[in-house]
């Protein structure tokens, strides 16, 4: 999809036009716990969208990094629903099936998502295992913590699932 259309799509998404109010004060970015790991903080992201630089926007890890703590939303002096805009961006990227640069946060999303889609519930060990296939180094480095947890009998190896994962999968697949 061309970038102008993407920008249009964004402004048309429910809270999208709210970013026109942004005064670029940076309250969101500095309130964000994940901002240091983001390619762009929310403020910069909004500036890029307004500039029409959708290439940079959709390839950034920023929306995937959002942990939904809503601190930005609760503090924005323009009352822009920043967290919702992050969801909106993710949805646009997912739904337009744009090919974008991969990033760790997005892969974690995918791991979670596939566990959920398969079983209707998620299991931490499954998500970790699936994620580690893609990012073996991260997987390795988290082994000590995993060992600690296993010692305390806090790692569930059995898959958590709904009564009939098959039925669940069938209904869930049709959604979009």
């Amino acid at each position: 999809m061309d970038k102008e259309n993407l920008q249009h799509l964004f402004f048309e998404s429910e809270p999208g036009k709210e970013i026109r109010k942004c005064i670029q004060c940076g309250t969101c970015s500095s309130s964000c716990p994940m901002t240091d790991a983001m390619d762009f903080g929310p403020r910069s992201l909004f500036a890029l969208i307004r500039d029409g630089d959708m290439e940079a926007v959709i390839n950034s890890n920023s929306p995937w990094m959002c942990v939904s703590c809503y601190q930005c939303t609760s503090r924005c002096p323009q009352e822009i629903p920043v967290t919702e805009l992050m969801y909106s961006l993710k949805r646009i990227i997912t739904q337009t099936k744009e090919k974008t640069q991969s990033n760790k946060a997005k892969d974690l999303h995918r791991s979670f998502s596939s566990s959920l889609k398969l079983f209707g519930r998620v299991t931490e060990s499954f998500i970790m295992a699936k994620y580690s296939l893609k990012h073996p180094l991260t997987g390795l480095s988290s082994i000590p913590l995993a060992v600690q947890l296993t010692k305390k009998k806090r790692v569930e190896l059995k898959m958590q699932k709904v009564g009939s994962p098959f039925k669940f999968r069938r209904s869930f697949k049709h959604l979009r």
Partner: protein
Amino acid sequence: MKYAFFPGCAHDTSAGYKESLDAVCSKLDIELLEIPDWNCCGATITAGESKTSSLYLAARSFALSEKMGYTQILTGCNACYTTLKKSAKYLSSDKHRLEAANKHLASEGLELTKEITIQHVMDIIFDKTPKPIWDSYKNNALQNINIACYYGCQYTRPWLTGPQSDRPEYIENFLTGLGFNAVNHSAKTLCCGAAGAMPNADIAKKLVARIADGVKKESADAIVTICPLCQLNVDMYQTQPDIEQIPTLFFTQLLGLYFKIDLENLGLDKLLISPEPLIEKMQNLKSA
């Protein structure tokens, strides 16, 4: 009293949340009925893929609850709480979205017709239980026990604005009523980073270090959490080098200690940071 309960995917593997919640509830005559065949709420993930899917996930569990005769659902997880509460709001305010969800629910023979309300199990324990049970364990010497309440980010937000969003006093007021010294600190609703911890361990560690620092300033004996993800992250990352270790337990575990429930029924052994110093301090209190 009986309530429909949505445990969420992290409930069973949490460090004694399940055990201590069950123990405290039976003390208070609360019966939590697990919604049969509930499914994951989608947390912060599914809403980033499709609004319809994310509402379907909520609607399915809601419909199951409705089927068992309950329109009020309790949960003990902040992420489930916020996700479900937001979904309930969307579903009740937008007929089309509700219709869309019901269309897909029909294949499992389910339907959501009623408005669902979501409450944190803590709200019920604090507000809906008889005072005399609490009063009979009241002990003035508890004021020597310094508790730092940690709400996490999603319990107060985006629902509350103003001071309640950053410096709530709800749990503090309740614990103070029991006799504890609930300290006022600056880390009550800081995000622990749990949702993004795995790929960003360094950030999660930094965030937990800040929480520990805020709590440490008030010489807390323990951090009390109300969410399995918060507990896991705050407990786990405090075991990393250079971070002060303060026992981090579920509020239900603290209430279990208050009620003098047998320690083995509170799952305290699953905590990474040993709660021994706290337990000892509480057991050695001179009753006044």
